[in-house]
């Protein structure tokens, strides 16, 4: 039995202030919700109070994680998982740990990260990625030339190093919103639509390339 509060279990998210109701929202609000990753989630509906920034944020998310070529998707998801684990975002950690496992097939190491945090035993490549993402997370200035050198030593080129930086930095943003505007809870009947969005996104990942 795990002692850690971090897992790959699905989590619903409940807002602390009222989200936008798509039925009564403005056209830009409805469009920003529809373009988001999970249109039925109260998280994206809440961010739709300011539709321009939600829309731009969705574009950043897709550009950072889906853009090709570059670092394998699974290792970008690993960086997202590390940052979310360090920041303490239970929902982001569960979502991106599942995606890390889907793309890398390395379930044991991902579960070790959830259980033990960034000191988990990892191979040199994942150690370098984890150390870089964690350094950038605490205070950005902790990330230095030694992290770049360690990533290059395990085979990453400069573009792939920037993929780690951008994947980690995006979760500095995403974690702060998710942690501060509501809370994760085990799914209940009312969360069915929002959870279905997460499952559809997971299913798309299963048919995507790493």
């Amino acid at each position, binding site marked *: 039995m795990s002692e850690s509060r971090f897992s790959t279990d699905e989590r619903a998210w409940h807002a*602390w*202030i*009222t989200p936008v109701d798509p039925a009564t929202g*403005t056209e*830009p609000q409805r469009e920003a919700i529809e373009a988001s990753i999970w249109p039925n989630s109260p998280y994206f509906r*809440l*961010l739709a*109070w*300011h*539709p*321009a*920034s939600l*829309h*731009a*944020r969705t*574009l*950043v998310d*897709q*550009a*950072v994680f889906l*853009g090709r*070529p*570059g670092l394998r998707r699974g290792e970008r998801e690993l960086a997202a998982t590390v940052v979310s684990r360090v*920041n*303490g*975002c239970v929902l982001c950690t569960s979502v991106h740990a599942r995606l890390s496992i889907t793309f890398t097939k390395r379930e044991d190491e991902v579960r070790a990260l959830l259980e033990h945090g960034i000191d988990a035993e990892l191979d040199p490549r994942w150690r370098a990625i984890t150390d870089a993402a964690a350094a*950038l997370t605490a*205070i*950005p*200035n902790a*990330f*230095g*030339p030694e*992290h*770049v050198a360690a990533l290059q030593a395990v085979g990453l080129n*400069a*573009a792939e*190093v*920037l*993929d780690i*930086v*951008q994947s*980690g*930095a*995006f979760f*500095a*943003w*995403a*974690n*702060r*919103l998710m*942690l*501060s*505007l509501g*809370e994760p809870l085990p799914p209940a009947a009312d969360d069915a639509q929002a959870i279905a969005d997460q499952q559809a996104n997971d299913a798309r990942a299963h048919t995507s390339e790493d």
Partner: protein
Amino acid sequence: MTDVIDAISGLDTAQSVALRGHRPDVVSSAQASYEALLPQSLDADPVPGFALPTRLLVAARSARLEHSPAALAHYSERLSAHPEQSALLAFVESGPDRGAGLLASRRERAILRHVELLVARPAATTASDLDALTAAGLTPAEIVVLSQIVAFVSFQVRIAHGLTVLKGTL
């Protein structure tokens, strides 16, 4: 408009192309996020009540708390273009609970306190922290804009710092 991440990373055009050129969609969407939250004018922004100087105060204070002198200089310079709001520049340095901050309005102090929480201890936020913002007069839309600016600056300064380090390896 100048790309703001290039500007605060100190990248010239050739360096930007060398380091960021493989992900043009990240460059354009990060700039679009900046322009959505911190535009030159709020004329086209549908969210009322959160004035541009307040948005720049939030961004400048976030940059200061993130230890990013280049981003701090960028947002402070933009804030100084609003001389009628010169008191806000002092709050960038003081924060909510000492010096000039003690003279800030209840609303400004509530905003500044939330910035401190979101930069340094986001996992410690509770529903009552949002209640405090509501009690200080912020609407849900204003709470979202405040949160988005702090969170976006967290992203922006990390990419800029990463680029600054990578620039040294070119």
